[in-house]
């Protein structure tokens, strides 16, 4: 058993447990923190798979920006405590059914993969190196320049919209 495998097992346990914690904790803040932990685990998975850029993006964008925003919203709204029971009558059987389907799917894929391991292609060497970021940058700013620019406009519009909708009118009558 090599060190990678041990690392993988520990990480998977941490990932599964943090996901369970997210589902089971009654406090929204704890749930959000569990999700951050889960994101971090997934980021290390990416590192293990040899994709440092995605790992870093996962940490900065998901664990960093989005989750901190979530925490802010939860605390600002004062929604830390979830109400005791809010499950719908058909929710539980449906969830169990879907979980079984997912389990079957995962098991099926696993067994199929076991037979296919020989033919699985290794990721391109380019992806694994630090060069990946340069390649990504070049592609983004050459081939995908236009979508990139449109996205910036889109963000501007969303910001203007949010401000307009939340701004208090000066001297507005009602």
């Amino acid at each position, binding site marked *: 058993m090599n060190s990678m495998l041990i690392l993988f097992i520990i990480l998977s346990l941490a990932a599964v447990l943090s996901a369970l914690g997210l589902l089971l904790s009654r406090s929204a803040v704890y749930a959000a923190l569990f999700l951050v932990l889960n994101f971090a685990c997934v980021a290390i998975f990416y590192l293990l798979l040899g994709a440092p850029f995605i790992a870093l993006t996962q940490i900065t964008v998901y664990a960093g920006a989005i989750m901190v925003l979530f925490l802010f919203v939860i605390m600002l709204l004062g929604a830390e405590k979830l109400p005791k029971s809010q499950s719908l009558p058909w929710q539980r059987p449906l969830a169990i059914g879907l979980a079984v389907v997912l389990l079957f799917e995962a098991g099926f894929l696993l067994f199929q993969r076991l037979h296919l391991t020989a033919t699985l292609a290794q990721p391109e060497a380019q992806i694994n190196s630090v060069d990946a970021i340069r390649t990504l940058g070049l592609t983004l700013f050459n081939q995908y320049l*236009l*979508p990139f620019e*449109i996205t910036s406009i889109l963000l501007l*519009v*969303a910001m*203007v919209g949010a401000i*307009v909708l939340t701004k208090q009118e000066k001297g507005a009558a009602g």
Partner: protein
Amino acid sequence: MTQTDLLTLLPNILLVTWACILLLVDLFIPQRRKGMIALLAVFGLAVVMGIVLAQAGREMTAFNGMIVVDGFSVFLSVLFLATGILGIAIAYGYLKRMGIERGEYYTLMLFSISGMLLMAQAADLIVIFLGLELLSIPLYVLAAWARPRLESEEAGLKYFLLGAFATGFVVYGIAMTFGATGSTRLSEIVARVAGGEAVTTLLLIGAALLLVGFGFKVAAVPFHMWTPDVYQGAPTSVTGFMAVGAKAAGFAALLRIFVSAFPSLSVDLVPVLWGLAAVTMIGGNLIAIAQTDIKRMLAYSSIAHAGYILMAFVPYGNPKVAHDSVASALFYLVAYAITSFGAWAMVIALEKAEGKGLEINDYAGLGRKHPAMAAAMTVFMLSLTGIPPTLGLIGKLYLFRSVVEGGFIGLAIIGVLTSLISAYYYLRVVVVMYMRDGDPQVTSESWLNLTIGAAALATVVLSFVPAALFTLASDAVLKLF
């Protein structure tokens, strides 16, 4: 970036820049004179329209084939810019009257229109998606413009949530298409499909998901649930703009994607499109009968018209008819845009503060007190029904003709029958206006009156020379095939 890139994108670059400038200018204009932003916005739209017209007849591809200029894009861009100008014209007085005038209204509209232009020009699924978002996000905000009025906030939130949901379908569809063909570029997709490299099942799932996503945007049954509430709750000037602009842009993207990228899937998709068109026509028209609120009635009418335009998609895989059917869809979009704008402008003219004056019964006595207004409204209602001498009839004739030529006689019969049903609720408005006594309060604003007059005139006059417009539409789609 090369010169071609810049030239191809020039209308959009100018529009977005102008919108950003107006965003800043707005800060220095006192609250009482926000109307100046409207005038500046119209000026910008007019200039951009001039540039688009100068592009007419050219063929350009730019940004690695992500956007193009062709007849189709020019035709639709002009339609979108005109929609923008009319949308501002009907909003100008209305916003002031309702006390919800803020300068950002017009800049957000400009951004939304630039999204529409992108959708008309896009030749890549990613750009289509971004254009769709750039079009939708300002509309979500505009729908909630009359906050803190509850209906408007509800409309904004509902439109936002369901719109985001629909966007998910579009993105998933794009991902599936990418998975099936290895490219998001429409020309590449066609090439891969023709070369037999595409995974047909995945491609079919992708096309279906795209259809669902855009079905939401154009308000086709059964993805129409948001339409009545949003159309009713949003400020009427936004509704008018949304009903025409967003719908036309959705159809523009659908036409471009289906006609140029998925012709090989027509065997599988035609029954789906057939059903979608039929259900939309029947559902929209039947539910419209029960409405007493004019905004809700027009909302269901817009659903029904989405069904009529969807009819044009049904024969799209048949190369002999496809050209004419797409051209008739464009024609119908123009006809619907003119008529619908007129009708919404009339609603604005009769609307009073606090959402009063929106019942169909509030139109009683209009024929006696304001004969010109009543005549204009009659023209719009006749056109929406499809009764001569109006543009709506001609549009429907072209649509039905292409459907029949494509061999879908059953669908054409459904179209005719539902048009007959629609006569009931459209003509009821006319009956109420002329046959019942009442005391309607009409707000007379020069821009609004101009829009109503121009729309009524265009609806009638263009119906006598439809061939010219149809030739334009026909030339526009020439290069799509």
